[in-house]
């Protein structure tokens, strides 16, 4: 029964990864192709402060995005889980943005945020500001776009965890003298932890490798690892280095997950 899955994994996961891994040990040819000799040079280059800064920035942006998604997603998921018969309709609304391309939605944000965009125009018209605010092409815009795009990935697992939560446990906590905020921290959050962890991983990992959002909303000024990789495969025509960065990023994520699971994280999943 496992054979089809094994074949699928071999063809669509292991083989492409093997190709990328092989590329990462080759040298860039004179015209951007691949050539020998085999080398570790691509990995050594990663230690350059220029690239380390990009990696650090990517982690920071992904972490801030995850934290914001949590802060926004938890109350929303709690509200959805408590919405009785309407909850499935409301849940459908959370998923509705997926029906439109992420690219289109990101462009929509550009129209909202640019100097002559809706937000700035309204603020100027209202006389609240004289000069348009720099809303676009900065790290804030990138984080806004990432939070917007990934919020459903936080809300869905949280909703699933909170919906399973037995109402009588919340009543029991109140009955034993816990105020609503204490109940939240002592009962609801601990029991929603599997959803919390799943949501955080589902947001953090794709954000770490994001390239579309920083490209469009960051205007090329907020370079993340994803942009670096994309750039190596396109403009720079340095496939071996692009392959090395890809593998390094993946290794970092896997290492992080492994440490998390070794420390007993699996019981949250």
């Amino acid at each position: 029964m496992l054979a089809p899955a094994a074949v699928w994994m071999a063809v669509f996961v292991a083989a492409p990864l093997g190709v990328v891994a092989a590329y990462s040990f080759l040298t860039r040819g004179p015209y951007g192709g691949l050539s020998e000799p085999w080398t570790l040079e691509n990995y050594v280059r990663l230690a350059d402060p220029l690239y380390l800064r990009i990696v650090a920035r990517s982690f920071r942006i992904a972490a801030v995005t995850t934290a914001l998604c949590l802060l926004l997603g938890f109350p929303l998921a709690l509200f959805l889980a408590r919405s009785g018969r309407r909850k499935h309709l409301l849940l459908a609304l959370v998923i509705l943005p997926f029906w439109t391309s992420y690219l289109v939605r990101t462009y929509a944000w550009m129209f909202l945020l640019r100097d002559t965009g809706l937000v700035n125009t309204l603020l100027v018209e209202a006389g609240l500001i004289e000069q348009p605010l720099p809303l676009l092409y900065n790290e804030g815009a990138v984080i806004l776009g990432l939070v917007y795009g990934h919020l459903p990935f936080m809300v869905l697992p949280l909703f699933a965890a909170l919906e399973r939560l037995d109402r009588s446990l919340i009543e029991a906590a109140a009955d034993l003298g816990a105020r609503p905020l204490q109940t939240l921290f002592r009962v609801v959050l601990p029991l929603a932890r599997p959803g919390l962890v799943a949501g955080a991983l589902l947001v953090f990992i794709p954000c770490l490798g994001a390239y579309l959002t920083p490209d469009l909303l960051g205007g090329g000024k907020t370079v993340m690892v994803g942009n670096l990789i994309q750039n190596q495969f396109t403009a720079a025509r340095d496939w071996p280095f692009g392959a090395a960065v890809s593998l390094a990023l993946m290794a970092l994520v896997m290492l992080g997950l492994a440490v998390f699971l070794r420390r007993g994280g699996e019981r949250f999943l």
Partner: protein
Amino acid sequence: MEPVLELRQVSKRYPGHEAVRELSLQVPRGALFSLLGPSGCGKTTTLRLVAGFEQPTTGDIYLNGVRINSLKPYERNVSTVFQNYALFPHLTVRGNIEFGLRRRTAEAERRVRELIELMHLEGKEDRRISEISGGERQRVALARSLAVAPEVLLLDEPLSALDPKLRKQVRAELRSLQRRVGVTFVLVTHDQEEALSISDLIGVMNQGRLEQVGEPREVYQRPRTRFVASFLGAVNWVDGVGVRPEATRISSTPPTADVGSIPATVRETIFLGNCIHVEAELEDGEVVVAEVGWQDGRFARGDRVYLWWDRADELRFTE
């Protein structure tokens, strides 16, 4: 003495349904008070009104003479043992019992230790809730609620989740626990035997109304309504008078003393071990049962007999 808990004219209406209707009752301090009634009679809603999970539509609830209508559940010094126990699955036995204790003082520690001993949970303190038995879960739920030293402990069908074999034993333990800790218990049940066997007072509820409050013997022997009479036990209806089967005697000759009596024909004699049920048909076709000792089981199918009973055992209803 002032009652510890008092409900005055409490009603709870939901759209299209009145769960509790103008219910008034007083629970004396230290009593074990049972709210008894069929499912849907409003007894659990009444308990939830006292706990503060529901708000009365009209009427007032007093705890120690203080009106508590507007207090949140966490502001009321009452505690609930939930029907499914509602123990926190992410905490240990000790973690559950400690939950309601604000500070980790030496006094609090001592209290938790006492409760663990009282509930025979020694050695299980660090187990998770999923790792203990149903009976142990119930004792953890009791300990957790008693830890906050409530004025009134509310128990919602506390025995229903237990194995039927365990039930009789646990209900006796519950009674002795209540006597030992001296806390007022208000217990909800649909099992009349359970209510009769452990209560100081029973309130019988039907369709949102409290039909009668009294000591077990009183509500059983002097039910005020037909509902109370038939909910608490079997009743023979003879000439518009109710007589319990165990108060119904049987003889082959008309009784001479001043007692109630009626002729009947034996239909069936059922041997039940500790007693015999003689089913007899009256002339109007009504079938009644006399619960008699085995020495009175000599009657056979088709025998013409006289059923008789002490006048004092007749159930009379005020309404």
